[in-house]
């Protein structure tokens, strides 16, 4: 079981996905995981390793050295950070550092049976669409706990919280974020295809463990869709009975008012 762990929040969760950072800190306080903040650099953003190996190695050598000095494992809340750190660890051959994503930490390390007694609210009869994002599934060798083409961990977790997980084919597809500054039209079409598919299957809520996917689906969704996109940490936070403001639910772009009415009034 994890007691103390280094906290790699990543660039996005410090700025445009602040609510993910807030919610993660709140849930870790609640269930008793101590987060250690270290002055990390950017992980490379899933882009630098493709075009500038030298910068990628410099950035990650610095990050890994911080972890080696503190002798801590590291918790990530962004799928891209998780991937980049694992990539750097593989190339530097530093197998003693363990990189754990938040969902892995909660489901596998903390354990669902221990989590059970913390649960205050249940998502009864709420149709929730899981959206995994590419990096929490692929490449396969970095995510041995997930099935890369038939993912199930988020689905199981939604059922555990009492919700009704929805099966839809776009749950494992790409949200389109990497193309946002290459071809905006394609990127927005990709995001809206996912939302369209989810809402066609009756979903009232989409949950994703990746802050970039959340941002893409939340900010660029068609005005008519109005489906709230929650971070994994926010969904867990609601179930743990953490107040609305502490989870940053008012910071989501698509209104989460109906969740407020349902769970906080």
């Amino acid at each position, binding site marked *: 079981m994890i007691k103390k762990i280094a906290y790699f929040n990543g*660039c996005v969760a410090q*700025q*445009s996905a602040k609510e993910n950072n807030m919610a993660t800190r709140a849930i870790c306080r609640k269930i008793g995981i101590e987060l250690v903040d270290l002055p990390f650099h*950017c992980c490379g953003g*899933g882009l630098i390793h*493709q*075009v500038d190996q030298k910068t990628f190695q410099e950035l990650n050598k610095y990050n890994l050295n911080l972890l080696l000095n503190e002798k801590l494992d590291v918790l990530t809340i962004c799928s891209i950070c998780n991937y980049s750190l694992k990539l750097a660890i593989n190339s530097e051959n530093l197998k003693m550092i363990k990189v754990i994503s938040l969902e892995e930490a909660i489901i596998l390390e903390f354990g669902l049976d221990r989590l059970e007694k913390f649960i205050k609210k249940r998502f009864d009869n709420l149709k929730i669409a899981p959206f995994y994002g590419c990096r929490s599934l692929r490449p396969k060798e970095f995510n041995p706990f997930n099935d890369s083409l038939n993912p199930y961990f988020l689905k199981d977790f939604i059922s555990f919280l009492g919700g009704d997980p929805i099966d839809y084919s776009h749950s494992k597809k790409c949200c389109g974020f990497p193309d946002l*500054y290459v071809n905006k039209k394609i990127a927005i079409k990709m995001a809206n295809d996912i939302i369209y598919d989810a809402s066609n299957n009756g979903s009232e809520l989409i949950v994703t463990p990746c802050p970039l996917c959340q941002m893409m689906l939340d900010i660029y969704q068609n005005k008519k869709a109005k489906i709230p996109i929650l971070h994994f940490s926010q969904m867990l936070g609601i179930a743990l009975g953490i107040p609305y403001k502490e989870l940053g639910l008012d*910071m989501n772009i698509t209104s989460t008012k109906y969740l407020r009415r349902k769970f906080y009034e």
Partner: protein
Amino acid sequence: MEIKYISKNLFFSCLQCAQCTSICPISKLNQNFNPRKIVLKYLSETLDLIDIEIAWLCVDCKLCTEVCPKKIPIDEIMANLKLKLYNKQVGSGFKHTKLFIENIKKYGILNEKKLVFKLLNYDFIKDLPIYIKVYFKKKLYWR
């Protein structure tokens, strides 16, 4: 910078089954983006620069590599093409990539506000409501 070596022997192992193309989210939206053809041309060394400029569109979702029955590292082929494009300084994704790297080198972590404002272009008026919304949710703040 080195270009990762991908064995050209893989050329003979590609079955041309087009599973990569049928699962690719980009080729559904852009007919010119065809992983099967790109892989064939890459492995037979018949790609030219105009052909590969489309590689910027690849979102690196790795679905193609995952479904490939012959385990051809299509994601690495795409990364190689992007590296070539980056070194030649061409294509739709070059500006973003360059500014992204400069930004991180300068600030240590990504300064989203600076990057977004540097990437603003003529159709920024269309997205103005989005920027306003994001700004008032206190999301584009640096530290």
